[in-house]
């Protein structure tokens, strides 16, 4: 791993420019304006994680798709594997916002949850 890295914080819309330097076994974060930025920067140095959003095909619903998201961040390098897995699923209406549609996806510890209600088609 390099000793110095610069990137944009993605925690909130402010988008601080972060500089991280490694000293011994510790990461020093500069440029952040909040604690969450520091945590993000350290995580980014060790093992970057992301949340993703997608959709799942719905049977019998008011719409054909339900939007979903990861409820915990997943390792960045697993994004496309998780997408592939999501695309295998089909669910049936009705669906409520917050419903867990896929549990612990690919062992990441993150669930795929619905982000809206889909009423049954009548």
């Amino acid at each position: 791993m390099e000793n110095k890295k610069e990137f944009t914080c993605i925690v909130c819309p402010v988008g601080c420019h972060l500089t991280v330097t490694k000293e011994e076994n510790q990461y020093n974060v500069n440029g952040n304006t909040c604690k969450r930025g520091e945590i993000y920067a350290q995580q980014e140095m060790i093992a970057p994680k992301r949340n993703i959003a997608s959709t799942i095909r719905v049977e019998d619903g008011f719409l054909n798709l339900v939007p979903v998201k990861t409820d915990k961040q997943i390792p960045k390098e697993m994004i496309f594997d998780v997408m592939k897995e999501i695309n295998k699923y089909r669910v049936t209406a009705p669906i409520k916002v917050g419903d867990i549609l896929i549990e612990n996806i690919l062992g990441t510890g993150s669930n795929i949850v619905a982000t809206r209600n889909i009423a049954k088609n009548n």
Partner: protein
Amino acid sequence: MYDIIIVGGGVIGCSIARTLSKYDKKIGLIEKNYEICQETTKANSAIVHGGYDCKPGSLKAKMNVKGNSMFPELSKDLDFTFNKIGSLVLAFSEDEMKTVEELYNRGIENKVQGLEIIDAKRVKEIEPKVSDQVVGALYCASAGVVDPFNLTYAMMENAMDNGVELFTETELIGLEKNHDGILVKTNNGDFQTKYVINAAGLYSDKIANMGGDYDFNIIPTKGVYRLFDKKKSDTINTVLFQTPTERGKGVLVTATYDGNTMIGPTSDKIGTVEDTTTESESLAIIDKLGKLSVPDLNPKNTIRVFTGVRAKPNTGDFMIYASKNMEGLVHCGGIESPGLVSAPAIAEYVEEILIENGMDTKKNPNYNPKRKGIVRISELSTEEKSEKIKENPAYGKIICRCETVSEGEIIEAIRRNAGAKTVDGVKRRVRAGMGRCQGGFCGPRVIEILARELNIDPTEVRKDLSGSKIVERHLKK
């Protein structure tokens, strides 16, 4: 066995189809595109010219003046928008006033109605937005603007009501003289017919060549336009031309049939009939020239730029005549401006040629010259709107917000006999997507309605031309 095959579904071909449908004939119209009204007819100034600038004695002059006189009744019979708003040729100097006088005299010779030379004060009264530099103008009360799309659709629909058959995606590949007349070879099978009418616009010279005629060439000439948003403050009331000088013909600033303002066109000879590209240099030219007529035009209010290609003949005049080499073949080539206004007169001229060439005139017993347009919900009074929605609830479901177009109108546009098959076809018939958001909101809904009504998958829905599919695939299926 057909009596007549018309090649080309532009305004000329459709006008001829409608005119000939009053005879008891089996008539087919072939169009190479996915829909009719796809080439020069869909992208031009849409002006019903007075006819004062055509050379006296030319076919153009005759067709223009006669066509102009036919529009008021035609627009009633076929129920399309024609606004006789008058035109002005603006003069910016005394020198230019001399040209205006020449145009006036030419107009009188051509028997143009409603011509008058007026002073700057009158010009301002007629069109308050014109430049203060204007010293006078030629006013032509008989000029106007037309909905070129629905003019064409109306003529085709009416022709089909009277029995004409339409074959789209049918491209002419060869003509063969035989005992029964002419064999029309296409990518979609052959048609045996007695007469063939070449109304192929930009391709009319190539088709003349197929019949062994080499009397004219098309010099494709492109024109770039800018269309402005409908804003009350920007409204133009008339068609504003500039006085032609050695430097050029100037550009026009005009109201469209639906109340937008439009400027253009450039006039550039190009190598290929396919080139409908726009470029910033051309836009800069029309912007500059447009501002001479109306100084407060603001390009910021643009909703669309587009380019049309005119079928300019190298001979300088319309080329409408019976082939000397292939009996039964009639050419209608080189129909550049003023082709749109001339269309109904050209159709009657072709009719005369056919009769001279032996076509019998037995009437179609079921001929009906009238056609009703699609009801526009936005144009109805409050009570009429209520009535219409009661009669058909789909007219209460507004799909296009900018132009207030209902699902009922879109369905009607698709279900008509020469109906819309594409997103742009819907747009040109009922204006869904024609407004300032250019289909951003209604696009997905129009795709959905087209797929449902045509019973095709959304991935099969096209924007306009055969190769213009919009949706690549279904997700998550």
